[in-house]
């Protein structure tokens, strides 16, 4: 067995988990909203890409580009029409509403697409790989990981280099004082959820090209996303990537020992990190 190979596969798998988690982390960081429908929104976006691929005959990457503005608009509307109404000091209403939304999305997808599993075809890319001496890495996992890095770099640029990002951080600190700066917190939250849905679309693209999906698998993706966010420290995007990598490596190592241990090993790694660092690896200094 080649341990280096196993660990590298795990690192790359972590990129996929980081993509699942980045949108969740962004929304939580800005408005302290835990979106229990996050996994289902990823599946919804995967079906949207699938529909665009078959309707327009585009390749999956172009189809995802087309899906992005649609998902942004959906996120924006969802925040404006539903989620902004339940944000407040009490964390229970948003949990209940997003839990309900999760069920609604799953059932709507079952109605529209049946329970059959689907896949976004990526042609030769699905099996392409590159030899690096002793290890061989798949092109798809490498693309996934590179996309995760690009997403995190992009989000950090947005947060720390633009006026919009400044307004996001200020609103996250203190929405009332932010409104005295001429910022409308309700529309900042809507923009943030819209951007999170763009990230969700990217996650959906790789999820759908790498494996089969059906309307019910959203909640399982949500768990990986949660674990990555919590391991990383709430609100830190690089921490989220680190969290994804830790789960990914634990899973591939577990699977190398015994294929049945893959999922379990990821959850055990999550619990171990929480035992040692209850606030995650890179917690924010204030909260």
């Amino acid at each position, binding site marked *: 067995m080649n341990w280096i190979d196993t660990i590298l596969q795990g690192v790359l798998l972590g990129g996929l988990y980081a993509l699942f988690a980045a949108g969740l982390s962004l929304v939580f960081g800005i408005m302290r909203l835990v979106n229990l429908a996050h996994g289902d929104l990823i599946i919804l976006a995967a079906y949207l890409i699938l529909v665009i691929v078959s309707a327009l005959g585009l390749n999956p990457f172009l189809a995802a580009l087309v899906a992005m503005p649609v998902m942004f608009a959906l996120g924006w509307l969802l925040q404006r029409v539903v989620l902004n109404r339940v944000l407040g000091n009490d964390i229970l209403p948003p949990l209940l509403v997003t839990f309900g939304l999760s069920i609604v999305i799953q059932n709507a997808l079952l109605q529209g697409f049946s329970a059959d599993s689907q896949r976004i075809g990526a042609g030769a890319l699905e099996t392409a790989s590159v030899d690096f001496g002793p290890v061989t890495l798949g092109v798809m996992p490498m693309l996934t990981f590179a996309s995760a890095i690009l997403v995190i770099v992009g989000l950090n640029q947005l947060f720390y280099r633009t006026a919009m990002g*400044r307004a996001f*951080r*200020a609103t*996250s600190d*203190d929405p009332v004082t*932010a409104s005295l*700066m*001429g*910022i409308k917190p309700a529309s900042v939250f809507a923009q943030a959820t819209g951007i999170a849905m763009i990230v969700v679309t990217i996650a959906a693209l790789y999820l759908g090209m790498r494996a089969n999906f059906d309307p019910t698998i959203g909640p399982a993706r949500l768990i990986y996303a949660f674990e990555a966010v919590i391991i990383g420290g709430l609100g830190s995007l690089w921490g989220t990537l680190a969290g994804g990598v830790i789960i990914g490596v634990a899973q591939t190592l577990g699977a190398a020992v015994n294929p049945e241990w893959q999922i379990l090993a990821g959850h055990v790694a999550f619990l171990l990190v929480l035992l040692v660092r209850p606030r995650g690896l890179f917690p924010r200094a*204030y909260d």
Partner: protein
Amino acid sequence: MALLQTRGLTARYGDSQALFGVDIALGQGETIAIIGANGAGKTTLLRTIAGVLRSDPGMVMFDGAEIGARPADEIMKLGIAMVPEGRKLFPSLSVEENLLIGAHGRKAAGPWNLDAVLDLFPVLKEKRAVPGTALSGGQQQMVAIGRALMSNPRVLLCDEISLGLAPVVIRDIYAAFPRIRAGGASVIVVEQDIGQAMKVASRVYCMMEGRVTLEGLPGDLSREAIHAAYFGAVA
């Protein structure tokens, strides 16, 4: 006609009423002070004018227009900026970003921009990159004032800017006021420091228990009258 005026302004927190018909007026170019004991309703008055607390239509007039029912972000865009009680700097923003965000919703022409504010408070120049909350109390207050100036406001609302600061620091901060007024802002200062309020303002309102109990020119108000308006009892 007054630039900013409240008429029978009321405000409530849930079931408890905090303002009971407050009438104040601020003329163009004027600086007025609002004094009163803790809990008198001074902060509530400024927060209501700024739109953080909504009032009823007709209760707040600004430049001839009714603004009472509008939200804070819209009122800021009209040119009313607030230096909130307790400074309220954004902890995840640097000093420079805290200043820049003051102009987020309103990019009006005027004397104030980043350079002009750093010129007004030169100690902030070498602190531009540090988090706002890493500064001393006086420097934080300077950032809070500078942040409000960045939008070139027509009205500046200052809530207890001397609270918790050493006398020399208070003097430094109030030394900026002539330039702030020369920049075109009309100012309302809320102060518990009566001496400071009398020095900076051309008219003074005294509040107690959600009402204006005394109004006048600083020179005309006797210690006894202020004491009575402050504490209710005649000394």
